[in-house]
């Protein structure tokens, strides 16, 4: 039934799209490729001193990946999943917590002011153009929260050519997902509208954990269980409207998502329910709207951005099953109204380019919830970020300082500095240092005292310094290889007053500021092509995060993570993709005794663009038409990122993706 509803919604979108005549490029045979072996240097992207990655969604066409999948394959990033498709997933960077990463949509912070993190499952990849990941920096732009780094989700907007794309797939656990997006110019207005729907029955079989001490096992009965009450339906949509206005462009963008489903919570128990919540439900609605003008005005700046935004979030959670307490029925509404102004001036003092950016922003949060008094909080900041390019861009010096203010926490200075040395166009060394901090969330401060859980209004902000240094090079051609890129970055984060939920009394947990901790790590990445048929990419992250006082590891993060991707085939004709993900042991408790085992997970996908096959004769109708299939966790490994949230074993899906 849900699948039918989704198909209906998609059909509506496709019907609208079908009114537009197909504008596929003329079918012409590709010229034969001539290969010249030798070494030809490449040119690195002119990125600043920070460790930044940009992932383009179109690079993964027809692979049926989620946003969480993409992020998980990035060095330094660990995605913590709480189940399968549609279940919560959170991003952490370099050993941070999820609330120490700012996740933004089109440059606007989307993290929940209530809980701090952002559920990645609420972001629909087909509606995104790209994902910008910054590791170990971002405080200058976002202020509070960018302790681990930032992730910016950029939605699809109209390009030079009209475009329509649609996708539908279905697979294990009665999961159906579809999307449709159309972008075009209508007179002076460029417009894009997209829809993404998701539905899953969601129940999957899993194996409960066995705990072992000195070789003596303890296990649940039965050992196998089913993830219950795990259905979910989700609708998301984007709208983008843009038009020239004065010396710039005005753009309205909106991202809305509604989600409703069961909340099975922890597993770990005997019997058919395995300790899960059988009746708990949640629904949430979020909307993020932004009006932004970008342009340049000679008198007041070379690159000016003025934006106002509104973020709305409503969550409802209910669990009628109550033992020795009242049933839970909580409704919370959060709103944020904010504005920002960025202005960049460029000069050439002493013949060297100098850019100075000034950023101003302010926001006001309001919380209204049925289980606590209403709260509000204002925040804002001002940042100045000069960047000097010397010796024909061979040396870049950048610095910045932000004065950040949050109601109840006063002001904080957040300085940063960076250095990039590129003696050659294809090799670059860089280093950066910066301070970050995070103001506690509403939940951390004011969670109502429910006996077993309570907030802590006396919390201090988290305070951190990030350092990293790296080396990277890129060769356009090296013998049989092309697009060879290798990067290595060492990083350190020193954090004080980090906020952790602690069992402070026999039955009460509450957030506490803890002592100092240090995270040291190394990120390695590399990629290459071998002819036009083979692409290989690999990332490796080593992480050693410990509390300074005890030298014990921090929980929740693997000590290492390896991702390997092999793509065969002449994209965009066909491709076969194999992925390997290896994750080290994960400490699961602050006491330091429990460890989730290391794991190796294999995934595979195959996709065929029928348009490229003359026999099908589709080129006159569409520009791309992909049939695809994917198998996740081929080895059927027991996978968990946290102790009490199982993830599915082997499961598969098939789909179709079409573009005009």
């Amino acid at each position, binding site marked *: 039934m849900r699948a039918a509803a989704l198909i209906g919604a998609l059909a509506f979108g496709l019907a609208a799209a079908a009114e537009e005549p197909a504008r596929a490029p003329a079918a012409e045979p590709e010229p034969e490729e001539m290969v010249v072996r030798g070494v030809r240097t490449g040119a690195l992207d002119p990125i600043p001193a920070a460790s930044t990655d940009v992932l383009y969604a179109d690079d993964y066409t027809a692979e049926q990946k989620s946003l969480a999948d993409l992020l998980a394959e990035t060095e330094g990033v660990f995605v913590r999943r709480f189940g399968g498709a549609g279940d919560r997933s959170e991003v952490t960077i370099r050993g941070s917590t999820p609330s120490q990463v700012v996740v933004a949509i089109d440059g606007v912070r989307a993290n929940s002011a209530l809980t701090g993190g952002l559920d990645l499952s609420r972001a629909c990849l087909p509606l995104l153009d790209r994902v910008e990941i910054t590791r170990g920096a971002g405080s200058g732009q976002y202020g509070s929260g960018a302790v681990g780094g930032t992730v910016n989700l950029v939605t699809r907007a109209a390009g030079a050519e009209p475009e329509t794309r649609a996708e539908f797939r279905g697979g294990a656990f009665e999961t159906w997902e579809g999307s449709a997006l159309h972008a075009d110019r209508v007179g002076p207005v460029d417009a894009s509208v997209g829809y993404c729907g998701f539905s899953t029955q969601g129940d999957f*079989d899993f194996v409960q954990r066995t*705990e072992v*001490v*000195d070789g003596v096992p*303890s296990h649940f009965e039965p050992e196998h269980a089913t993830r219950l009450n795990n259905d979910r339906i989700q609708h998301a949509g984007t709208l983008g409207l843009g038009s020239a206005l004065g010396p710039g462009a005005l753009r309205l963008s909106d991202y809305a998502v509604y989600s409703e489903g069961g909340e099975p919570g922890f597993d770990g128990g*005997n*019997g058919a329910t395995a300790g899960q919540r059988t009746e708990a439900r949640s629904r949430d609605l979020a909307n993020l709207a932004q009006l932004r003008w970008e342009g340049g005005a000679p008198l007041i700046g070379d690159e000016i951005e003025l934006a106002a935004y509104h973020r709305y979030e409503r969550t409802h959670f209910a669990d009628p099953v109550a033992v020795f307490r009242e049933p839970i029925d909580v409704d919370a509404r959060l709103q944020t109204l904010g504005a920002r102004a960025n202005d960049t001036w460029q000069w050439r003092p002493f013949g060297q380019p100098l850019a100075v950016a000034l950023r101003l922003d302010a926001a006001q949060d309001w919380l209204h919830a049925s289980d606590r008094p209403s709260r509000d909080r204002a925040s804002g900041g001002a940042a100045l970020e000069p960047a000097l390019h010397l010796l024909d861009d061979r040396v870049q010096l950048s610095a910045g300082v932000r004065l950040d203010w949050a109601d109840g926490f006063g002001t904080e200075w957040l300085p940063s500095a960076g250095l990039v040395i590129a003696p050659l166009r294809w090799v670059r060394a860089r280093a950066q240092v910066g301070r970050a901090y995070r103001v506690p969330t509403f939940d951390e401060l004011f969670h109502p005292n429910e006996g077993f859980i309570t907030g802590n209004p006396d919390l201090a902000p988290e305070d951190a310094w990030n350092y990293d240094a790296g080396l990277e090079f890129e060769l356009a051609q090296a013998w049989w290889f092309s697009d060879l890129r290798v990067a290595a970055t060492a990083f350190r984060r020193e954090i004080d007053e980090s906020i952790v939920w602690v069992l402070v009394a026999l039955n009460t947990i509450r957030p506490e500021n803890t002592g100092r901790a240090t995270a040291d790590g190394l990120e390695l990445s590399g990629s290459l092509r071998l002819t036009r048929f083979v692409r290989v990419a690999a990332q490796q992250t080593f992480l050693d995060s410990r509390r300074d006082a005890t030298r014990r590891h921090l929980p929740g993060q693997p000590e290492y993570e390896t991702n390997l991707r092999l793509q065969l085939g002449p994209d965009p004709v066909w491709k076969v993709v194999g992925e390997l993900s290896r994750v080290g042991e994960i400490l699961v408790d602050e006491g330091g005794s429990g460890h989730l085992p290391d794991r190796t997970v294999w995934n595979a996908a195959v996709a*065929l663009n029928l348009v490229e096959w003359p026999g099908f004769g589709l080129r006159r109708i569409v520009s791309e038409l992909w049939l695809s299939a994917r198998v996740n966790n081929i080895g059927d490994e*027991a996978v968990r990122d946290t102790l009490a949230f199982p993830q599915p074993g082997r499961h*598969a899906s098939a789909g179709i993706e079409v573009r005009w």
Partner: protein
Amino acid sequence: MSRRALAIALIALGAPACEGQGDAGNGLVVERKPIAPNCTPVPGTFPSGLAVLSQASHRAALVQTSPPGVATFDLDAERPVPLAFDNIGTDSDRDGADDAAAMAPLVGFPLSPVMGGITALRDDLALVATSNYEQLLFYDPSSAAPRSAVVETPASTAPGAYPLLPPPGQSQLRTGLSTLACIRPRDPFDSTGEPTAASAVCDPAQPSYLTNLTAGAAVAGGRLFVATSNLVNGTRFHPGTVLVYEWIESSGALHVRPDAAAPALFTEHFNPTGVVRAVTPGGRELVLVTATGAIGSGTGAANVRSEGAIEVIDPAVPRIAAVIPLGLAGPSFDAPAVDPGGRIAFLGASSQRQLYAVDLRALDDARLYTPGADPVTLDGMRAGFPDARVFHAGAPLALPDRADGPPALLCEGFTDVALSAAGSELYATDFCDGTFTRVRLDLSDAPPVPFPPDRFQVAAQERPFAPSNAVGLLRAPGLVRVRPGAPGVDYHTPDVLVVAGQPDAQLCALRVESQ
């Protein structure tokens, strides 16, 4: 590529695509590794009970909540060595019905057992309490193996009085004894003064409720006594009960059935939890019950909603013979720790850093056991009877503060106590500040009842654990137990066991007298 090749590729990819169970290899094994040389991780979380067995066995049995079951440890090492674990299973009492499903008609949804305390009667028999599915499980604590008993329901028992016992007049070999009973309270008001409603699943015609939160148990005088807290929700309690069963061991077989004369005793105070058998200096066998009074899950004096007491059951009758009030004390939920001579019993406090004690010599007064008499309150206000209180809410034995302990607002104190094997010292842990305090006892001679407070002096306070708000350190000590026998003579390994570090707990062995 031909269409045939495409079809083959898709089929090849689809071949392994049947949904897996995520159980390749060994499934999901969580390794718990020791983090201190004297501590062993518990093979699960939230341990709820600990019992040390005889001097000869050198073993201890521990109850844990998740996975729910019983584990045994060998104590002849610097840290306890796990030997075996038994999951109670989905039909824990082996009555042929799934536990959770059996509870569903009674409460409206499935409820699985939640583990509670353990009472070791012998090296081969212990009673393990579970709540939600209310019962006592029979276990061999030396091997963590379930044991069976013949559970009977007298023919005279009213239908529905014990919803999960065999039907009246029948018996069944089971590994657990249901403590789910229909109660018609003598005083039908809960701890907030609200009248008790009629229960549709118990007695729709009059104020009634089903027992819940099965807690401590003890066997005395041929009877089994089981405390049930009877929580309504939050800090509201129905009147507390001690269920009474006949306990008959003959020819190696154990028979248990509801007591025909007095199947349930109502405690004078709310929330009966700990139960222990005691023998007074005069040789009188009694059952002591900790009744904490209505209490919340917070900390500090405000957490205590009504007065608590140690209530004294004469197991021979059975009836509550005496009450030793503690005031607004909020004692710990554990059973009173009784000295080997039966002269004094100590209790910790669940909301403050202090201890309570009562003088058991007052219980040798034969007048307390006059048939048909009301319970006598031994607070010194009853003519002819002494004040049996040594330390109570108005005059507690306060433990020293730890300078680097947590703020009182966070955790004022949660203490557990045990007495040394010789009865010369009391050991107290505090969950909040992580301290281990030794109190010297002077029980010599025969001073008037009650013992003067100055006979109990804090001898030392150690800091083997971190305060409860510390992160990444072993902290939050709770249950404390002492090995029987003379340390350094009967055994040479540590003499005290402490459960610390909830919820991912450790069983730690401390050398106190066994240096």
